[in-house]
């Protein structure tokens, strides 16, 4: 009997070791796919003029307080995404910073916000489903009524998007929700509706991808028409095609995102890290799934443990009643 028990333990431990060591094989989880009616934004850095209209419109649409900065502190001047800023335009600058969309002695703009990942880490991380991804639009939204404030979403997000109200006794997580409330009423994200150049363009992700492919094929220097606000707004303006980086950021980064970027300078310069195709979340939950799927392994182990504990207890009790006079006994 002893040998059998030992074998059981070895088997259980070995199984656990195998599962934990070899995450790739343990992949029992399907990678999320783009929802059919996914909505998103195509941000074209070459079209952005850095007017910050989107930053102001975003604050208004989402009732966010201003963030004064600098000596005078008279107006909204956020320096980065924060608990009061869901959307921001940042600038890359090098050398003299004279030429737009140039790596040397140039500058370029970048719009930072939630990218609405196709396989979002934050949604998988959240223990109480406060962060959810809409099955149709794919918008990742936040429900403060269930959030417990554990901040695992902040640890998990590869883009450092979710922010926390640190100086509030009743804090919340804050992030862009693609102006969900406006889209429900047939509108579009505030940043896209005010963008004068079409740098921030709203639309169905599939169509935005099509549009991005059209732009990648443009001949640099030639005039083309660029839609403004949204793909179906009817508004457009003519612009000289830039020399694009031959890659759209968000096509496949960590499984892809619904907010995508085009640029003439490398994305790394704009603070968008180079990521593998496979998301960190699929690696982590692959292992977790393999061990805990249907709670089968834990239950089997529990039954084994109960049987062993019970058997040891019975053995000990029969030993005692045989060798020593009956005496008061606590559980041990």
């Amino acid at each position, binding site marked *: 009997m002893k040998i059998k028990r030992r074998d059981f333990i070895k088997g259980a431990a070995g199984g*656990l070791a195998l599962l934990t060591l070899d995450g790739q094989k343990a992949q029992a989880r399907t990678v999320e796919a783009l929802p059919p009616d996914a909505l998103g934004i195509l941000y074209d850095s070459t079209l952005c003029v850095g007017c910050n209209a989107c930053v102001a419109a975003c604050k208004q649409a989402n009732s966010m307080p201003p963030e004064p900065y600098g000596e005078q502190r008279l107006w909204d001047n956020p320096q980065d995404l924060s608990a009061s800023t869901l959307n921001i335009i940042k600038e890359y600058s090098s050398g003299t910073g004279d030429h737009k969309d140039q790596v040397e002695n140039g500058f370029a703009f970048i719009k930072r916000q939630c990218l609405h990942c196709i396989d979002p880490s934050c949604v998988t991380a959240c223990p*109480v489903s406060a962060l959810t991804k809409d099955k149709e639009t794919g918008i990742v939204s936040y429900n403060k009524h269930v959030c*417990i404030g554990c901040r695992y979403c902040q*640890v998990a997000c590869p883009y450092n998007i979710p922010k926390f109200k*640190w100086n509030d006794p009743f804090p*919340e997580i804050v992030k862009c929700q693609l102006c969900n409330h406006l889209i429900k009423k047939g509108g579009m994200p505030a940043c896209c509706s005010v963008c004068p150049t079409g740098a921030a363009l709203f639309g169905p992700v599939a169509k935005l991808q099509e549009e991005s492919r059209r732009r990648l094929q443009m001949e640099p220097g030639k005039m083309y028409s660029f839609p403004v606000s949204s793909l179906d707004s009817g508004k457009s303006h003519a612009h000289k095609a830039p020399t694009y980086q031959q890659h759209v950021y968000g096509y496949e980064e960590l499984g892809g995102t619904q907010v995508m970027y085009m640029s003439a300078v490398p994305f790394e310069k704009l603070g968008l890290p180079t990521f593998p195709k496979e998301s960190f979340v699929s690696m982590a939950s692959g292992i977790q799934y393999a061990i805990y799927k249907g709670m089968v392994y834990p239950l089997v182990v529990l039954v084994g443990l109960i049987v*062993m*504990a019970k058997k040891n207890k019975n053995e000990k009790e029969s030993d005692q009643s045989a060798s020593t006079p009956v005496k008061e006994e*606590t559980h041990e």
Partner: protein
Amino acid sequence: MSDEMKPLGRRIFTPTFFICLVIVAIAGYFTVKRFILGIGSISNMNDGFPWGIWIAYDVVVGTGFACGGYVMALLVYILNKGEFHPLVRPALLASMFGYTLAGVSVFLDIGRYWNVYNMFLPWQMNFHSVMFEVAMCICTYIFVLWIEFTPAFLAKWGFDKAGKKLNKVIFAVIALGVLLPTMHQSSLGTMMLMAGFKLSPLWHTSALPLLFLLTAVLMGFAMVVFESSISSRVYKLADETSMLTKIARIMAWVLGFYLIIRFQNIFMRGQMSNAFSGTFLGNMFLLENLMMLIGFFILAYPGYRSNPKLLFVAAVAVLVGTSLYRFNTYIIGFDPGTGWKYFPSVGEQMITYGLIAFEIAAYGVFVKVFPVFSAHPTAEAHQ
């Protein structure tokens, strides 16, 4: 075995007790401030480092230290090593406080504590979340630990009938008490897998769950050795070295296995040059494993591990090494990559010290009031 456990029945209000009380009071001040003005008012945590020492120390290291009850229950009740029985209840008591205070710390740390009930609403549960699994496991395990310790309460207050009834079913609770830490201690490792590139490759590996499970076992055993050594001095109990030496032998095997996995993993992923690059993180890796190696060399030789002083040194080295490993994984090796920095503020540290002080004071009170120790002054170590 005549291992009757008895309360030590000594003076409760010692100078140590009062010092602990003062520290708890200071922590109380910062706790009140945190609830009135928000977490940011007393802590240095930020959007880049959303988790500070309340998670990294109080929960991740703290529950590791509190694995004594787990490993001793595994040894005595599952693997049937009855000889270690006298070590079980003191270990269980320390685990009970360790886990309970980790729970208290989590409550201070989470921003929207009034929403915690959502964790128990089936339609809100996210079974894909590692955090969910860890939270549920730890929560259940705190109850399990209190039930496991209940026989001591019942014996003290003379509820013999209830004691006998509990005795009939407690094996199931004990089994659960072995399963739950196996689950959540490994998941504490899985948790940081999701951090992806933010965690240095010296710590980010798919072996995280296994390494965390092994460090939990090591921390549990090392804490049993550490606590027994201190208790036998402070409370002038009989020497338990011969029993601890046997524990040390088990530790040597687990630690050897851990070191093989740790270095093989670093080597296979081509991170060895990173470890010896002389950078801060490389040095932290070396320091962490140096402590483990010191522990291993003492524990591996029968001559060394039977010496009470060397054994104590080994236990401390393993405790430092394993907690460094966990600190490195949760804070030191973590870099969100946007210039964020973190070092715990005074208020944050004081709350952690307060929890530790509370644990020491409460442990002292419990061993004096309830039947915990079975080794008594002047008695032989072994029956």
